[in-house]
């Protein structure tokens, strides 16, 4: 067995070893049971007191969502102005300029929604001040928002009938103090001691061995890289993200970072089962998601290890696989492993450039983001999967001729309508966006804009289409990775993806929380022999089939035009 394969197996094993106990801990902690981190209570009390919050006040699902939206809108407004005027604020040793209004619009949305699309480059587009006070702040709070929303859904199903989905502030603050912040401290220190810069010093200069004068961007990066992964945010300190040798200096840090981005998504799934006292449900969902992950990962690894067919024709050796856009210290297998995980868990950080991966790899990356429910982002992964569950419950109900039920609550027209709308939203946003940009590219290529549509793409042909499809898919999934060849820092892309980001974030949070709130209020019907049980393997397979059918129907044509067409054109 080779060392590259061993490396990713070990990474996955370590992920599980951490995620399983973490899941149990999260369930207990959010339920308010005794846990070992209770020594942090005074800190939380202080936060609540200074903020004028009563963390024990019950909220129904509408109040919960109102509180959530209020603070999110506040961040949007405040961050927009700070980014525009960052050049006039302190902590800007490199003298970087303020952002243009359209870029600031896109940037602030993309961080509030946990996407981190980054139409700028970290070295020149933001200052140390905005990296910390906007970017890193939101990396914590957007992850905590997602987790809090997921816990509201848990809470709706814990008791037989309840109006109360829990207190937003309580879940939100605890997500930070009891989960994200302590883990970030550990991960940041590990990175800082393995080569990632952590001090506030600005650019450095040296003269290389061949006599070139080289400037080196640095800064307090370790702090941000920790939360960027733990919170499934993905926005890098440096432009090249985790491919950068300071952001991800070694194979060891690579393992740390890839483990960091998986543990909370997996733990949240297990926590769901523990929290609603149906342990088996958590494991069944986890099993389905793992199968889905492998179905995307194995072909990805195989297509990357196979190398580029075009370069093979030139006769050079590709024993190490396709190397364009990859770093030698990670190798193609760890890069392929990362590319699958970062697209399914919505992190969107990269340790190799997706634009240069093989055509089929691109297809699997896109599909991972389109499904967006195999583990998924911090908290929102389980919300997305919950929508699939409701659809599966409904379809199964129709098949066996019974009223569909979800843990003793009748699923009726209203809930199914919400679930169906949320399911349709993703393909609509992705397809409409890609159709619009393709139309502009073809019909108005020479429009008199700052960046002409004909100059958007870094690659011609099918791959160019994939660049646009990828950008909208990534925006809708709140993923944040990109086929970065796309010239996206201009008004069209900043504004178009900005709107898609916001719709693709909040509707898929509001929908499931609303469904859960509505179901939780309904009269509890005890389970009987005739009940369709959803914590079984059979139902897991059913859900999996629903996910595959829905996504294949929605996305196959688009995938066929982009990566699949490129693949077939290359092997002919």
């Amino acid at each position, binding site marked *: 067995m080779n*060392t590259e394969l061993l490396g990713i197996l070990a990474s996955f094993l370590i992920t599980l070893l951490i995620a399983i106990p973490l899941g149990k801990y999260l369930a207990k902690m959010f339920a308010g049971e005794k846990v070992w981190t209770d020594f942090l209570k005074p800190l939380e009390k202080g936060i609540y007191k200074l903020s004028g919050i009563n963390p024990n006040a019950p909220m129904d699902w509408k109040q919960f969502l109102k509180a959530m939206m*209020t603070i999110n809108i506040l961040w949007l407004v405040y961050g927009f102005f700070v980014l525009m005027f960052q050049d006039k604020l302190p902590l800007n040793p490199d003298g970087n300029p303020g952002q243009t209004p359209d870029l600031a619009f896109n940037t602030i949305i993309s961080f509030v929604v946990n996407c981190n699309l980054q139409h700028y480059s970290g070295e020149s587009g933001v200052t140390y001040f905005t990296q910390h006070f906007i970017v890193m702040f939101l990396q914590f709070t957007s992850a905590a928002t997602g987790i809090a929303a997921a816990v509201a859904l848990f809470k709706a199903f814990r008791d037989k009938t309840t109006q109360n989905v829990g207190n937003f502030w309580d879940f939100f603050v605890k997500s930070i103090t009891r989960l994200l912040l302590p883990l970030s401290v550990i991960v940041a220190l590990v990175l800082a001691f393995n080569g990632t*810069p952590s001090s506030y010093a600005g650019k450095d200069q040296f003269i290389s061995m061949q006599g070139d004068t*080289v400037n080196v961007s640095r800064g307090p990066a370790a702090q941000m890289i920790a939360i960027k992964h733990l919170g499934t945010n993905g926005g890098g300190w440096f432009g090249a993200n985790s491919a950068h040798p300071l952001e991800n200096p070694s194979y060891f840090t690579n393992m740390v970072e890839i483990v960091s981005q998986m543990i909370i998504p997996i733990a949240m799934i297990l926590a769901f089962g523990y929290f609603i006292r149906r342990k088996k449900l958590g494991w069944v969902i986890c099993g389905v998601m793992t199968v889905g992950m492998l179905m995307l990962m194995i072909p990805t690894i195989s297509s990357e290890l196979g190398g580029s067919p075009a370069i093979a024709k030139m006769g050079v050796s590709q024993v190490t696989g396709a190397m364009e856009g990859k770093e030698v210290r990670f190798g193609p297998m760890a890069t392929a492993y990362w590319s699958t995980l970062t697209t399914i868990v919505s992190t969107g950080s990269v340790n190799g450039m997706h634009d240069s991966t093989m055509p089929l790899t691109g297809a699997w990356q896109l599909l991972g983001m389109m499904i967006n429910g195999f583990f998924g982002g911090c908290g929102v992964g389980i919300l997305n999967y919950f929508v699939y569950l409701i659809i599966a419950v409904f379809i199964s109900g129709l098949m066996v001729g019974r009223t569909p039920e979800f843990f003793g609550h009748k699923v009726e027209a209203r809930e199914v309508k919400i679930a169906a709308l949320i399911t349709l939203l993703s393909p609509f946003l992705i397809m409409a966006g890609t159709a619009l940009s393709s139309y502009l590219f073809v019909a108005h290529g020479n429009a008199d804009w700052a960046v002409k549509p004909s100059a958007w793409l870094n690659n011609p042909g099918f791959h160019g289409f994939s660049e646009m499809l990828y950008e909208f898919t990534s925006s809708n999934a709140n993923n944040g990775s990109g086929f970065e060849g796309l010239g996206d820092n201009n008004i069209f892309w900043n504004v178009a993806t900005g709107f898609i980001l916001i719709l693709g974030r909040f509707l898929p949070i509001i929908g499931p929380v609303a469904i859960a709130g509505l179901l939780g209020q309904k009269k509890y019907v005890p389970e009987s022999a005739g009940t369709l049980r959803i914590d079984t393997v059979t139902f897991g397979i059913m859900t999996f089939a629903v996910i595959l059918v829905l996504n294949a129907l929605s996305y196959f044509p688009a995938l066929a035009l982009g990566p699949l067409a490129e693949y077939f054109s290359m092997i002919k």
Partner: protein
Amino acid sequence: MKSYIMQSIRLTLVLTVLLCVIYPVIIAFGGKFSKGNGGGETVTVNGKVVGYANIGQKFDGPRYFWSRPSAVGYNAAGSAGSNKGPSNPDYLKDVNSRIDTLLKYHPYLKRSDIPADLVTASGSGLDPDLSPAAAQIQVRRIAANRKLDEKQVAQLVESHIQKPLLGLFGPATVNVLQLNIALDQLSK
């Protein structure tokens, strides 16, 4: 609703202090005790800083081991990959001309000896490493240009191969900067 707005503002302020001041300053303080004191580890030769341990630099002269092609010319003020797609004809032309250049300076090579990492740009444009094979194929050129024994140079490469993590995980690599520093010392 009004109370949510006030609570949001106050909570944002409190968390800003916790997450954007206290947390990063603690880590920055801890990082002071790492190699490079939190500013990134540098490499010094004869008291002069010649580079960063983890950041690759441009080596394309006849007397040095070459580093990988870079989309940013190893300018570490920024960082980027080429973002060229695998079927892009211009990109494939570039790769072909890199192969031709390699063959020109290493006339003893067959095409099939050339490992892909030596003719493709890295993800960051700052890749500090080569695969062992990519360093090994350059040995003969360097030995000839520096009038060194080929075996001696080959041994130098061998001794600079960094094993996988714990000998178990990930690929073996060669750090180009370290290798070239050692090469200069060998020539003295």
